[in-house]
């Protein structure tokens, strides 16, 4: 299972990095979204993998998943939404002001 998680996070990171290196705003926004997926997963699994024991206190349960990374990631998801929203609106505004959607505000061929 650990291998699968490593592969998922690795692929998400690779896709994120590639898209973040593009020259137009839209792919860069997609890339940032990928990177936030990767980072959120990364943070979660720092508490190691636990299956079938969510950190909800109940009678008769012995082990729980680490709640701390989960709490961190929960707010991180919401914050990354805020960031994505901000960046996409910024891209929109830049497109309107500059007349193109290149990340540096200029056309390149």
């Amino acid at each position, binding site marked *: *299972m*650990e*291998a*699968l998680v*490593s592969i*998922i*996070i*690795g*692929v*998400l*990171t*690779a*896709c994120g*990095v*590639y898209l973040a*290196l*593009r*020259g*137009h705003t839209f*792919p*860069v926004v*997609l890339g940032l*979204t*990928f990177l936030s997926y990767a980072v*959120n997963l*990364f943070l*979660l*699994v720092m508490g190691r*993998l*636990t299956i079938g024991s*969510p*950190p*909800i*206190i109940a009678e008769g349960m012995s082990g*729980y*998943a*680490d*709640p*701390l990374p*989960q*709490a961190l*990631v*929960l*707010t991180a*998801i*919401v*914050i990354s*939404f*805020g960031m*994505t*929203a*901000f960046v996409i*609106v910024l*891209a*929109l*505004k830049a*497109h309107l002001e500059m007349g193109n959607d290149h*990340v*540096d505000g200029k056309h*390149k061929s």
Partner: protein
Amino acid sequence: MALQYSLFVALNYFHFMNLSLVALTPFIGAVFVALVSRLGRLHAAWGAGAVALLALAILSPLMVDTFAGQVFVQRISWMPMLGLDIVFRLDGLGLLFALMILCIGLLIILYARYYLSEHDDMGRFYAYLLLFMGSMLGIVLSENIIQMLIFWELTSLSSFLLISYWQTRQESRVGARMALAVTGGGGLALLGGFLLLGEIVGSYDLSVILASADVIQNHSLYLPMLVLVLLGAFTKSAQFPFHFWLPNAMAAPTPVSAYLHSATMVKAGVFLLARMFPALSGTPEWFWLVCITGLTTLVFGAYVAMFKDDLKGLLAYSTISHLGLITLLFGIGTPLAAVAGVFHIINHAIFKASLFMAAGIIHHETGTRDMRVLSGLWKYMPHTALLAMVAAASMAGVPLFNGFLSKEMFFAETLFVVNEPWGWLLPTAATMAGIFAVAYSLRFIHTVFFHGEPTGLPKKPHEPPRWMKVPVEILVFLCLLVGILPALTVEPILAVAATSVLQGPLPPHDLAIWHGFNTALVMSIIALVGGVLAYLGRRPLAAFQERIDKKLEFRRFYDHLLGKLFKYSGKITRALDTHSLQRMVFVFISFVLVLGMTGFWGSEFTLTGDRALLPIDSVSALMTLIIVFAAIATVIMHRERLIALILLGAVGLGVALVFVKFSAPDLALTQLSVEVVTVILILLALYFLPQRSPKESSTLLRSRDAVIATVAGGSVAVLVWAVLTRPYQTIADYFLENSLPGGGGTNVVNVILVDFRGYDTLGEITVLALAGLGIYAMVDRLKLSGSLHDAEDRPWDKNIHPVIMASFSRLLLPLALLVSMYILLRGHNLPGGGFIAGLVTAVALVMQYLANGVIWTQERIPTNMHVVIGAGLFIATITGIASWLFGYPFLTSTFTHIHWPIIGEFELASAMAFDLGVYLVVVSATLLILIHLGMVHSQSHLAKPRKRIR
């Protein structure tokens, strides 16, 4: 926790009248004054006066014991584990300076009220002045030296604001920047010195440092530490060769010059010398460094002052010279010299503040400060002339005035090395400086008030308003009082201040005008006679000065250095900033990769650890395949933006499933709802953006990016693998054990969010609120015309709100809201909570907008989202503050179980109120963002598109 706790402690301390309040009052007062100035021009002046009086009133109960020799130390715990406390100290030296700062400050406040013209913003002036006053008080009342340094830098900053008060004038801005650069740079050196000092002594507390002279002076780091500390003191006190900022700071309004550049700010440097005197002085290094600097400054300043045509320029160089004198006295290092140094600090503050004020009056009433134009004012303003003459006589060291007493003590002290080889140099140079001082004082008086009739003045001169002269009169009266009856007036405060400088018994000293016919008196007489002669023979001297004038301009050197600095930093910036985000991101990622890999290769590192692995099941393997496939497909299809977005959504859902698999139901719910909102948002934006990305990168560039992306992804995968195969220690047990008994909830993740780490959550919802408001600011009143066609040139469907969807969404709304309420309420015990419930509500409402159109929905939900955001933050903060009222740290939660009829037992936790705040912020910020993007849309539907944006 530590921060929350100390905030609480600090609040408790407010109940006492205490030392810290003396320094804090002006800071609070600055805000108050800035606010009351809106009510009327003069309110600011009255307010500032009241604030200074209040600080004085808080200080006064402590004065009696301080005079009796007691040292007050007030300690407020801040970060005790790091040895960082907020500590204030009041001893004789601190008291002397605090009194000078507050009393002269009061006079300046009165004076400035008449000095400032109707065009000047009084509120801003007095607010800055109080900021400065507070910073200065902070320096002189600090026990912890790091804390002292913070106030030290605050004086640099607030004096920057004061010097550049007339912002429209170029010279003000240049002067202010120069003062900040020099004194701020010195502050950095001082920080280094203080850190070394703290290392040497093992404490940042003054009481420990002052008692550790032996340890300090025998330490190998003594010399570098001393040099750094002295750099701080010398730059602040405008010692040669850092003196040039002071004359340039004369661009400030004259009340500022009178306050900062005579009585307070420049005195901070000599205060530091006095404060550190017991710990650092007494070594050859101290003697040579401080003496040579002081002596050079003394003579140089006095010499240049003779040739300045600007009244304030003359006073500025005279100030430099007198500061040199004080520095020299501390450098000489005998106990009596230190007493003389403290005495001269007092005298100089009194006569120089009054002279600056007199110069300001002259400027105010004649329109010029140029001594080549000014003359014969005696006839027009005899009262002012008399006041200026007394103060100038004191500056020159004429008997019966206070300056004479300390100057004569100074002359006497210069004689102690006279029997050494070259020992005659010191008294000779001192006498020379005395001659120059008499000459420039005489010039000030003779040129301005006599010397023929005034011709060509911009204004017809007359006496200033009555109250403008009062501060000068008070100070001049003090000059006389101290000068004639020193033992009865200044002796007590001098004694207690000098005792705390020496940290030991006071040497026998006799404050009297007549000490018999001794060498010091001879030197005084030579200075007086020589000064008159020098003034009479000033023409040949001036001609000589004319020739070497340019060489003495240190400002040119500074400008040269600054120019070079700008040039090279510009070059570095241009070399690093390539104006291309792509290249910067590439450099950034490559750098991180190289950094990480070097770390890997350097160590004895096995890739796989010894933790037992979980078995792979087929469903998980399939899901992994789907996620990987969708992610790679997104990249391949990224130029077809709509398709890429759909694929991205699939990846997001896959991530949510990963959260489900690994026991994180809260995360899965959050991810799911965020995914919906994100996709809607990007869709809205995509409508206005080009539907396709053009092919812009060359194949080479794309291959390069593919390689670096693969390397980055591979490294992260390896890193994750390495971590996951290793055992680890967690701090989670604490949360798991205390969640139910301490936080009253079984959902540990939610309890962490709203209770254990509530402070973080409060910060996070604030960030979200700000993002929402920022987006609102960007799209408000934005009018965009979207395309009427899709990427394939097919026209959009005219029926934008299908009836079936509209009807269903309306039916679903109550249900969705019910679900979100349920999620909110159960969050403390089962997966859910404010974040998730907020997102679900937002999605439910956004669906109405999508299905029924913005206008239709806006009419039915007319809520102003700004108010809801504010309400959410308010509720969350109030919940935190409420715990203060019960004497608990910020955001301590409490809970109870109550029995409701029908429903049964029900838990009520204060954390639920906090979660409600979170909920409101999430709902309103999300809606604010989406609705306003949607509004842009609806306008584009109504407006005729002018041209197609591709």
